[in-house]
């Protein structure tokens, strides 16, 4: 098992200007590891981080989008795996923090926590690249390659929580953080307007 804060430090060192969409408790550890206006906390209801990230990935097709999903969250929006794999955004990296627990709601176990394979779900849904990590050294070693792959990429991070943190939900769901995100997006959007858009597809 990895500690989540250690895991996030490794990712923070490599994020560059990627937009990161963290869910629930992980959001606070991510905020400490990598404070940036390009963190997108506005994931709305539980389970929706990956769907917000898909919208961002489609809207910014030339920009890397990384989602740090929760295991309980993903269980609540499993169809998103199929939707994402079907649309196949090349710029989306989808990690799930698997600690088998509804950490933000009293540490109750997630259903089937010792049997469920998120990697198996992702493979079955059609993600072309699926990884699973429970060792920090392996994660640190392989992360540059994982981030460089053409998405959608899926990675399961088997971990335990890091240092306890104060969780200020009013901050991460408040208007100020969204305005900072919008402001930080302006140069990215301006750059994107000069890039060739993704073609429309029919399905």
């Amino acid at each position: 098992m990895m500690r989540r804060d250690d895991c996030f430090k490794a990712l923070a060192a490599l994020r560059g200007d990627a937009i990161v969409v963290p869910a629930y408790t992980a959001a606070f550890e991510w905020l400490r590891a990598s404070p940036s206006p390009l963190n997108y906390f506005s994931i709305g209801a539980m389970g929706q981080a990956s769907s917000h990230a898909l919208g961002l990935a489609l809207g910014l097709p030339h920009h890397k989008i990384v989602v740090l999903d929760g295991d309980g969250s993903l269980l609540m929006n499993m169809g998103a795996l199929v939707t994402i794999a079907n649309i196949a955004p090349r710029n989306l990296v989808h990690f799930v923090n698997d600690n088998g627990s509804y950490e933000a709601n009293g540490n109750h176990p997630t259903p089937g926590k010792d049997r469920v394979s998120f990697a198996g779900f992702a493979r079955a849904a059609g993600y072309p690249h699926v990884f699973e990590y429970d060792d920090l050294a392996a994660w640190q070693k392989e992360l540059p390659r994982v981030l460089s792959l053409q998405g959608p990429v899926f990675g399961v991070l088997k971990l335990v929580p890091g240092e306890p943190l104060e969780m200020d939900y009013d901050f991460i769901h408040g208007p100020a953080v969204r305005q900072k995100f919008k402001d930080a997006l302006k140069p990215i959007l301006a750059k994107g307007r000069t890039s060739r858009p993704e073609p429309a597809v029919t399905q």
Partner: protein
Amino acid sequence: MICGKTHLRGNTVELQGPRGAEIIAAFKKAGVGIVAALPDIWTSQGLLWPLSRDNDIRLLRVCKEDEGISICAGLSFCDQRAVMLMQYTGLLDSINNIRASAVDYKLPVCMVVGLLQKEPDKKPTESKRYGIRIVEPILDAMGVDRILIEGSEDVALLPPAIDKAYATSRPMAALIGREVRK
């Protein structure tokens, strides 16, 4: 008041729904480039199938309606106009995410919602179907702007409603009161 052009068939008067082509044209007029959708038999033949063949609007098929709400929310940060097309049952299923991602966050999430089996001559709140009767009161309680599209003449309401949603950064719902025609 019930709107919509009438069409005589035998001795009965048939109230006709809007055409899908009119709604697609309204999407384009409003600058909508992406439609996320779950099939609804009310809008399937007239709107969703034609949308799936449209070269200018990208169709995203989602597995559950609340995904589409989030996708539209994410796209709104990227200056891209989008619509979530669904049945009213999907709207009801997505209430918590609409509350959070659209209303709480004040984001321009636009929804087109088929009122499956609403009686053509009745207002939604007068429907004998409970699920339809509660839609408008729920949207009003949530503070979500709404329009009702019963027939072709109502489609003109759609582009300004979408423009307003983006101008004010607020969600809106366009309720489709009759089956969409080809």
